């Protein structure tokens, strides 16, 4: 109350007389001290200017109102009252904020902006009292705020200043604006919005001094205490007209006042309110002591106000809308009449009623129901009111926005709710709706819309569409859309966008703040020149200066109208067009404008006559008489916070670089920081060849995807190879097809068919093979010839094949072929059929070995020490790339199969022709045709050739095993690479076992006639046996289908073997001699050669063997080597290691088996091929030694060793076996994953087999040994099968294996018997045998067995094994192995 007068005077003065003011203040203070004791302290500071505000502030506070009396001493009494009122708190506050006395001597006003008197005056006021600044938009409220803030920033070095703006965009806008005006250092400013997390805000509240916040954040932080309210010195409130009710502004100020603290409050608004109550509310809520109001007409303002033309354009309602309106009126009238009948006083013409007026009437009715009206009718009245309100609202929409929004409103209302119930029967409303629908369907444009378009077009004719900007305001989003649609039709010069709020309605999606910002950004940049906005565009957001504002609806409050108009005329002349529909809208607009004008009168002269103000602290003690100082700020470029952060990131050097050595940094730069992308990027496609084979893994196994990649790469690589290679590929594919066929069971019985298919695949040899198949015996020679003929090509193929095979390692490929050629030639040259057979065997073995081809490369490398090296390389290769081998195996499996089939054919033919066959060509052919991958085998074969027949024999089993393994492994491979690996391993193990057998056979052979040939033959028999067992095993392992399919082959193989054996046996007298001769001649050479290698190996491996047995050993070694080679090829590394272990331990069989089992692990683990070779040798040696021992008791050493071994094996076996069995059970399930487990299982199996041999041994050593070997083989095969079964699905295979074993054993026995009995017609017998084998093999039974449980299977398998073991001896005996053995022994010795 008391401050009114001072304010007036101030305003009148315009300029402060600081000198006078201070004097007066001092006087006033003196007086007040007299009046109130508390003020005495205030003056001590005067004498001694206090540095802290502690002392000075109380006076300041007192002078909250005193500042108004600057220059007005006569009001002091009033002031005293105020002071006493406020002074209560004086000493309670211990302000923490010190004042800077130097800074307090002046206050800064920016000098670079043209001085505006009103701004300067308002600022001066605002510095010393809580002020509400009401300035029209665009007159620089922000400058006032910024100057005040800056001065408080200077005066109170620890003080904190808060600028609150109601929305985030406004906050961002104001922080920049303030910066650009006074240049408060950015390191002290921060914007705090809801996006900043509270904990961070708490930190920022401490570290920063100037805060630009949203009121909500401020409220929360004050309530949570994170805002250091004690340090606040200045609070600026933007858009202060919002400070009503419980808005955050009010809460904040209340909280601050309750603390209590002293601070300067500066409130800014363009539209304080349209009613005096509202304005008074703001003043109360914000503790305002001064109202600074200016409007455009004020003398100090008007120079800065641009000409703003306000046009109110009256728009006719339009015919359509008029019709609808009339219809609506029809609807309205009955309700209005009813209301009137009830006695409700609708005090106007119902034509011009507005919904608001109806609302008011309803409120009135509710407050004071009509006296005469029965209570029952109240409901009727209410419903009438409700209907009227809705209808009038629709009518209003119709008039101000057109038919469409009205129609939509009506439709929505009619859908549900009381209005719908009320109107559901109303014919008029239905008609109205129909009419509106019709009008809309005709696209009737609203007259407002067309008028607006007209205005727009005119505007852009005058103004450049590129620089001119237009805002169109509409109250409803629905009409925003209508406007947008209309604007889209008027051409290019109008680029319009909508600008709406965030909330998403049912029909229209809102715009996020980000999009809003983007829209504004583009609007500023010129991407749009028209914005169609709802009320969101009215206020605050710094929409750029526009030339034209179109108010689509006039029916808004004057406050909002001012805001709308504030969008233009800021810096240039602007134009405001208000589109008002004639009639009610126009009238209401005029009414509102009138009331707005009335308010202005209240605020004129500071509103001192109309409003009550509140005291406020001066903040600056009166001792300081700040003088204005016009300063030119040097303001740094404002850096938006976001960008600032980004730059920080960008310039931030990675911390890790500091820790790196220059070399490392350089390396890093080489790969990562290279400006040109081309440089040294790790390539995924650099080594496609390496992707055709699985890379060796460390711990992480290959995934299925990897397998797919490898397969794909292999397919991709194939075409690039030569035609020969293509043939290989085709061969590869062929096996697949065969397999499939096998799966289908088409070829189950007919090997020839399979062969044919394979042959078909094999370009060159297909015909030959077919011929062979058709008449294996008769056309053997021809086929042989063909083979011979083809051999050269094959050689080429080999070379190419080798290369292709070597895809893994290019280096390997080349040398092999060369070696092969001579070998092949040699083999071809061998006149003897036996040798041929052997060759064939070799070839087959080679083929089998093919999978091992990787080792071939190694072999080539190692060429110098062929066998050893080869072996070692093989082993190394295997070890290095078991995966690759596996893959090769898989790829080769098909080949192998083909080769096997070929080999089988050959074998059969060989067997048939056993007497004088040219197996070598066949072999070569085979190799050439389908066994291309086998080319590496050729190398081996060469070596083997040197070694003589033994190799082939060995190889043949190898082949079988390989084939079997391949077949068996195939599905597994497909299913799981891991499984494949395992399978391969198993196959290798299997191969090993056959090899062992072969070796045994070889040994026996060697013992018999000339060691090699005889051995061969015997081996063949053995092989047959072994093969049979192996086949059985294979069949079992491969699974029923595979088994069935394979079985024929196996049978054939078996037959062949059997045939061979039988033939050999039959031929023995003559053939053996010839063989002996051959073997002697060749064998010597070979043996010698082998010997060397063997010797070296022996030296390595055979420590136990005495010098005396060296020769025998040598022979054995040769055989062994061959076997070993084969084995090595098949599963070189692992077996080798295993063998070695066995040898070392002396538990040769067990160990070997175990080793076989462990082979996979060994392969993976054993990196040194040599070791593997050694192991293989050892492996073979023990086997051989076993055979020898068994067969040749003469060789005591051998026997001893064998015995030892056998003993060792026997004794250890059970325990191991048990252990293994125990462990194996679990492993089986997990078999695929853990190779070791598999190996264990294998070993277990081997152990079991060993056991059987042991038993047999006890009975009859040799026989037992043989049987044992066979059984071992079988067992191994069983184990393989088991593995396979495990991999695939398990139990069944095992059973099958068992059954097969039994059947095989029987069949083999029969065959052997037959073969032995009937020397002549061996071929036929063989065939018969094969058939018999097939017949014997009850697939159904097998399957049925397969269904048995694993445990049962195991037990059964054991039993069966035992059983098989038992029969085997008989078989072997019948086969004449024993017989052979002695003969061999004789021959050897």
């Amino acid at each position, binding site marked *: 109350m008391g401050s009114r007068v001072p304010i007036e005077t101030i305003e009148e003065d315009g300029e402060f007389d600081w000198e006078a003011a201070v004097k007066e203040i001092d006087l006033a203070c003196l007086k007040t001290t007299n009046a109130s004791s508390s003020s005495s302290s205030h003056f001590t500071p005067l004498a001694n200017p206090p540095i802290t505000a502690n002392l000075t502030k109380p006076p300041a506070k007192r002078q909250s109102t005193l500042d108004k009396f600057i220059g007005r001493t006569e009001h002091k009494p009033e002031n005293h009252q105020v002071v006493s009122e406020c002074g209560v708190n004086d000493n309670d506050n211990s302000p923490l904020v010190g004042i800077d006395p130097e800074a307090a001597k002046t206050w800064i006003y920016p000098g670079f902006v043209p001085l505006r008197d009103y701004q300067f005056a308002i600022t001066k006021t605002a510095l010393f009292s809580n002020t509400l600044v009401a300035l029209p938009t665009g007159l620089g409220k922000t400058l006032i705020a910024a100057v005040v803030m800056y001065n408080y920033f200077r005066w109170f070095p620890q003080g904190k200043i808060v600028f609150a703006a109601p929305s985030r965009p406004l906050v961002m806008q104001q922080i920049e604006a303030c910066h650009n005006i006074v240049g408060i250092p950015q390191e002290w400013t921060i914007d705090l919005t809801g996006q900043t997390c509270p904990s961070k805000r708490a930190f920022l509240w401490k570290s920063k001094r100037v805060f630009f916040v949203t009121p909500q954040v401020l409220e929360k932080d004050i309530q949570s205490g994170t805002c250091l309210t004690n340090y606040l010195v200045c609070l600026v409130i933007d858009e202060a007209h919002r400070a009503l009710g419980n808005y955050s502004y009010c809460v904040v100020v209340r909280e601050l006042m309750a603390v209590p603290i002293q601070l300067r409050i500066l409130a800014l608004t363009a539209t304080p309110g349209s009613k005096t109550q509202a304005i008074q509310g703001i003043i109360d809520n914000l503790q305002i002591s001064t109202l600074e109001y200016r409007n455009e007409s004020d003398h100090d303002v008007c120079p800065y106000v641009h000409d703003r033309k306000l046009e109110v354009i009256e728009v006719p309602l339009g015919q359509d809308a008029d019709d609808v309106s009339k219809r609506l009126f029809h609807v309205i009238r009955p309700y209005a009449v009813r209301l009137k009948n009830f006695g409700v006083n609708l005090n106007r013409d119902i034509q011009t009623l507005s919904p608001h007026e109806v609302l008011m009437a309803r409120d009135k009715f509710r407050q004071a129901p009509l006296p005469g009206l029965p209570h029952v009718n109240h409901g009727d009245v209410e419903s009438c009111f409700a209907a009227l309100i809705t209808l009038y609202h629709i009518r209003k929409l119709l008039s101000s926005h057109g038919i469409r929004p009205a129609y939509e409103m009506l439709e929505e209302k009619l859908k549900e709710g009381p209005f719908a119930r009320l109107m559901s029967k109303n014919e008029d409303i239905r008609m109205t709706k129909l009419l509106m629908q019709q009008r809309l369907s005709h696209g009737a444009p609203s007259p407002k819309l067309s008028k607006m378009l007209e205005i727009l077009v005119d505007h852009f004719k005058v103004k450049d569409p590129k620089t001119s900007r237009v805002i169109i305001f509409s109250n409803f989003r629905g009409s925003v859309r209508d406007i947008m649609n209309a604007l889209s039709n008027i051409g290019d010069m109008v680029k319009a966008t909508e600008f709406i709020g965030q909330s998403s309605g049912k029909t229209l999606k809102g715009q996020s703040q980000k999009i809003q910002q*983007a829209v504004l950004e583009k609007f500023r940049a010129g991407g749009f020149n028209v914005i169609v906005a709802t009320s969101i565009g009215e206020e605050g957001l710094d929409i750029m200066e526009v030339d034209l504002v179109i108010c689509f609806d006039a029916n808004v409050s004057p406050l909002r109208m001012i805001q709308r108009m504030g969008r233009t005329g800021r810096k240039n002349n602007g134009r405001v067009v208000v589109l008002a529909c004639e009639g009610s809208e126009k009238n209401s607009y005029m009414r509102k404008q009138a009331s707005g004008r009335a308010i202005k009168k209240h605020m004129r002269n500071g509103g001192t006559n109309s409003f009550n103000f509140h005291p406020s602290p001066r903040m600056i003690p009166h001792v300081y008489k700040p003088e204005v100082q016009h300063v030119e700020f040097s303001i740094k470029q404002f850096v938006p916070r976001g960008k600032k952060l980004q730059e920080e990131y960008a310039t931030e050097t990675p911390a890790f670089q500091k820790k790196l050595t220059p070399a490392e940094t350089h390396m890093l730069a080489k790969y990562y920081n290279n400006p040109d992308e081309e440089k040294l990027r790790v390539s995924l496609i650099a080594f496609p060849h390496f992707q055709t084979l699985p890379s060796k893994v460390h711990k992480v196994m290959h995934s299925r*995807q990897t397998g797919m990649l490898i397969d794909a790469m292999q397919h991709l690589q194939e075409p690039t190879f030569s035609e020969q290679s293509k043939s290989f590929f085709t061969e590869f594919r062929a096996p697949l097809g065969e397999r499939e066929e096998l799966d289908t069971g088409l070829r189950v019985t007919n090997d020839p068919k399979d062969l044919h298919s394979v042959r078909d695949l094999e370009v060159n040899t297909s015909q030959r093979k077919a011929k062979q198949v058709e008449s294996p015996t008769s056309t053997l020679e021809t086929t042989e010839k063909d083979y011979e003929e083809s051999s050269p090509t094959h050689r080429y193929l080999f070379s190419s094949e080798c290369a292709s095979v070597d895809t893994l390692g290019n280096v390997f490929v080349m040398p092999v072929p060369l070696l092969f050629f001579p070998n092949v030639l040699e083999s071809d040259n061998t006149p003897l059929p036996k040798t041929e057979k052997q060759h064939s065997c070799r070839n087959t073995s080679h083929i089998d070995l093919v999978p091992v081809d990787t080792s071939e490369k190694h072999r080539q490398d190692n060429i110098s020490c062929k066998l050893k090296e080869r072996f070692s390389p093989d082993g190394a290769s295997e070890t290095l790339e078991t995966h690759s081998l596996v893959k090769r195996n898989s790829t080769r499996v098909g080949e192998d199969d083909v080769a096997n089939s070929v080999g089988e054919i050959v074998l059969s033919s060989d067997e048939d022709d056993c007497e004088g066959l040219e197996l070598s060509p066949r072999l070569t052919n085979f190799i050439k045709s389908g066994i291309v991958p086998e080319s590496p085998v050729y190398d081996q074969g060469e070596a083997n050739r040197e070694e003589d027949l033994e190799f082939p024999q060995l190889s043949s089993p190898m082949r079988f095993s390989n084939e079997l393994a391949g077949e068996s492994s195939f599905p597994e491979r497909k299913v799981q690479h891991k499984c494949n690996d395992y399978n391969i391993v198993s196959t290798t193990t299997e191969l090993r076992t056959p090899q062992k057998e072969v070796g045994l056979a070889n040994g026996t052979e060697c013992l018999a006639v000339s060691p090699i040939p005889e051995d061969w033959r015997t081996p063949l028999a053995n092989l047959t046996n072994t093969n049979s067992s192996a086949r059985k095993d294979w069949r079992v392992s491969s699974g029923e289908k595979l088994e069935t399919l394979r079985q024929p082959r196996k049978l054939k193989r078996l037959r062949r073997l059997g045939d061979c054996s039988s033939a050999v046996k039959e031929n023995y007298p003559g053939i053996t001699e010839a063989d002996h001769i051959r073997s002697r001649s060749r064998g010597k050479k070979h043996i010698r050669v082998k010997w060397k290698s063997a010797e070296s190996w022996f030296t390595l491996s055979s420590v136990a063997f005495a010098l005396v047995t060296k020769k025998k050993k040598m022979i054995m070694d040769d055989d062994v080597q061959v076997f070993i080679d084969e084995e090595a090829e098949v599963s070189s590394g692992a077996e080798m290691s295993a063998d070695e272990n066995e040898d070392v331990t002396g538990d040769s069989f067990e160990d070997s088996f175990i080793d076989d089992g462990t082979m996979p692990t060994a392969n993976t683990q054993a990196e040194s091929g040599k070791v593997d070779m050694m192991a293989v040798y050892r492996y073979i040696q023990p086997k051989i030694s076993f055979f020898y021992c068994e067969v040749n008791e003469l060789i005591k050493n051998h026997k001893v060793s064998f015995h030892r071994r056998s003993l060792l094996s026997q004794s250890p076996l059970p325990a191991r076996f048990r252990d293994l069995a125990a462990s194996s059970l679990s492993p089986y399930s997990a078999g695929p994953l853990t190779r070791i487990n598999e190996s264990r299982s294998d070993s277990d199996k081997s152990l079991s087999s060993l056991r059987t041999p042991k038993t047999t041994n006890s009975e009859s050593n040799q026989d037992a040994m043989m049987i044992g070997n066979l059984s071992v083989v079988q067992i191994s095969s069983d184990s393989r099968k088991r593995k396979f079964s495990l991999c695939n699905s398990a139990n069944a295979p095992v059973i099958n294996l068992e059954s097969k074993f039994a059947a095989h054993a029987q069949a083999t026995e029969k065959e052997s018997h037959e073969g032995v009995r009937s020397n002549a017609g061996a071929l036929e017998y063989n065939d018969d045998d094969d058939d018999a084998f097939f017949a014997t093999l009850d697939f159904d039974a097998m399957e049925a067995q397969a269904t048995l449980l694993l445990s049962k299977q195991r037990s059964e398998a054991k039993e069966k094994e035992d059983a098989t073991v038992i029969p085997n001896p008989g078989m072997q005996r019948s086969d004449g192995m024993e017989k052979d053995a002695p003969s061999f022994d004789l021959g050897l010795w």
Partner: protein
Amino acid sequence: MDANNTFDSDLIHAIFKHIWARRFRERERSDAIDATEAEVALGTTKKNRLASANANALKLSCELLKSFVSEAVQRAAIIAEAEGMEKIEATHLERILPQLLLDF
């Protein structure tokens, strides 16, 4: 795996955060571009928050990364060894990389 034999989870976290921050910035930039082009269109309110990982996820990530790195090194070492090199070069890594990536 034992805690000693794996990566420091703080380090991994720092790396993750580095990557996330970079991603975040890239996304913001593209968002800004999008927004300016968004014009009238739909407001896509993307969560502009940095990704985060809890402790267990971090541990697991460390383990995965460790096994990945060690596997890569081991495989490359095998190749290098096969070539008789004593030093793993980038080319060795390239050879095993495709399969390695597919294995993980």
